[in-house]
């Protein structure tokens, strides 16, 4: 399930490939510039005042000018939104990984009637666009009394995350050897104990992949909070962003610093863990 890291193709003639590789290198550098420039402009502008943004949009700012960030931090509910995002994402991830591993473990390690049907059931949820079922979900949440309650988000994200998690984990758990498990069973260990003490430590790498696969879309989701959450104190970061982008709509420095602050946590984690991020986020699409 990880990205294959085969060696790049060997070049037989250095001379012959130089021109071609030069062109490729230029394309790649240009593309990287286009990818990074908007992010850099965003961060630079976050340190500028309105007149500075209008007059010299691309200049390097005075990085000690942090007024915009202070205003976001003190005048808006930013911190609250950030905490909410952590609570919702954390809650959903804990449930997704726990429940996903349970189901995958059962499907992968035991033969029982209906196992393949259950796997299919989960896989069916893999590509269904749940957004289109928002009306019944909305009514369901109302009936459960979960509107304006973060559990509505946690539950929906859990259900959305389960198919991919079960898919990734089942494949991985199946590939684990039987010996350890059989030996423990001979020693009379209970099934629960075998799962907890012997198998779970082995599945951690797959949990990281499945975790990253789900954590990014959950952290970034905007659609479900838009429908389920109205109380300002319960909003998650992307939704909260729309609130303070509205309030400060005329103060571009503050807007850019709001965007920068919202983007920063995930960009930093991404830079630190880029290999795992790329592997995790493309895991569903690579056979």
């Amino acid at each position, binding site marked *: 399930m990880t*990205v294959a*890291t*085969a060696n*790049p*193709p060997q070049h037989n003639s250095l001379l012959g490939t130089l021109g071609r590789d030069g062109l*490729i*290198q230029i*394309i*790649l*550098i240009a593309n990287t510039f286009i990818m990074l420039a*908007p992010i850099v*402009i965003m961060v630079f502008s976050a340190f500028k005042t309105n007149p500075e943004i209008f007059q010299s*949009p691309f200049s390097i700012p005075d990085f000690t000018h942090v007024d915009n960030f202070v205003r976001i931090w003190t005048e808006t509910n930013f911190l609250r939104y950030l905490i909410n995002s952590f609570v919702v994402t954390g809650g959903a991830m804990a449930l997704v990984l726990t*429940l996903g591993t*349970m*189901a995958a473990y*059962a*499907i992968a390690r*035991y*033969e029982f009637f209906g196992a393949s049907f259950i796997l299919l059931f*989960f896989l069916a949820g893999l*590509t269904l*666009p749940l*957004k*289109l*079922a*928002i*009306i*019944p*979900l909305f*009514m*369901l949440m109302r009936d459960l009394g979960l509107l304006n309650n973060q559990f509505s988000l946690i*539950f*929906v994200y859990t259900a*959305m995350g*389960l*198919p991919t998690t*079960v898919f990734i984990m089942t494949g991985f758990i199946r590939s684990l050897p039987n010996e350890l498990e059989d030996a423990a069973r001979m020693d009379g260990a209970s*099934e629960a104990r075998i799962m907890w003490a012997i198998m779970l430590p082995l599945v951690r790498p797959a949990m990281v992949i499945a975790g990253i696969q789900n954590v990014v879309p959950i952290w*970034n989701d905007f*659609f479900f909070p838009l*429908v389920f959450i109205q109380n300002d104190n319960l909003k998650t*970061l*992307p939704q909260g*962003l729309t609130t303070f982008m509205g309030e400060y709509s005329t103060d*571009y420095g503050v807007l850019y610093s709001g*965007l920068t602050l919202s*983007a920063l946590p*995930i*960009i930093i984690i*991404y*830079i630190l863990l*880029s290999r795992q*991020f*790329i592997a995790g*986020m*493309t895991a*569903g*699409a*690579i056979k």
Partner: protein
Amino acid sequence: MAKLRMTGRGLWITTLVAPPLAFVALFIVYPIIAAFAYAFFDWQGLLRGEFVGFANFHQVLFVEPYASWTRNAFTHNIIVFFALMVLQNGLGFLLAYGLWRGLPGARFHRIAVFMPVVLSTIIVGYLWKLFYHPLFGPVNQVLRGIGLDQLAQPWLGQSSTALWALIIANAWHLVGFPTLVFLAGMQRIPTEILDAARMETESEWVKITQIVWPLVAPSATIVFVLLFVGAFNWFELPYIMAGLDGSPFGSTDVLGLYFYRTAFGNVSAGTQDFGLGSALAVLIFIFIAAVASVITVRLRAREIQV
């Protein structure tokens, strides 16, 4: 396994499987089935009224003004899909090919191309909305700066450019995804096949079309299907950049916005209508499922088993 008593084993498996199944059943399967049922009823606000058969479907497909709204939004989704097919998947394939050569700095380029992918669509939408600002946006400032004043335009305000402005923002956001999926596909091409190909031809074009492309076909199938589903679920980016009405005058309206507006209403619309909204959802759903399966089957047939 065999030593377990059947009841104990059954109980244990049920304990493992039932809670996750319950989540999927309650929050995915039930709502989707219910969405189909809702579409056949008349709704008064949140109260379900009478069974009306196919009336809601008839209305969104054939009764004006809904029919032309539906057509308009659907056409835009199609444009978005094909444009992104070129700008996002096509470019992604080329970039992957470049990265695959493992030139100096490839690791850095790889991290850079994927960086926007981890950002929330909301952040990307606001960022590009600020960039396209007619007076103060960097896009027009660059154009004016290099003397191309006449090219500086209200990108999001003109029906001729608004949808394309959104498509470009989307391609910037997500091009890293197909790039790295294709790259992973290329990296799994066995070295022997490449060596053999190198004996046969020097032409890069022949190698790409005859060897590389067919061998990354499995990646392509998945990337195409995901783009298709994504293009027909487009919501967040137009919502942030163009507003719920698909401004200007519906030239960025897509099915996602139209569905949300119909179901939940907006400030300027008279009413919210769950019946019509559900009918739209069902139609979009059936369309996505049908086309996605056709794409999968057709493309799978072409894949070369390595």
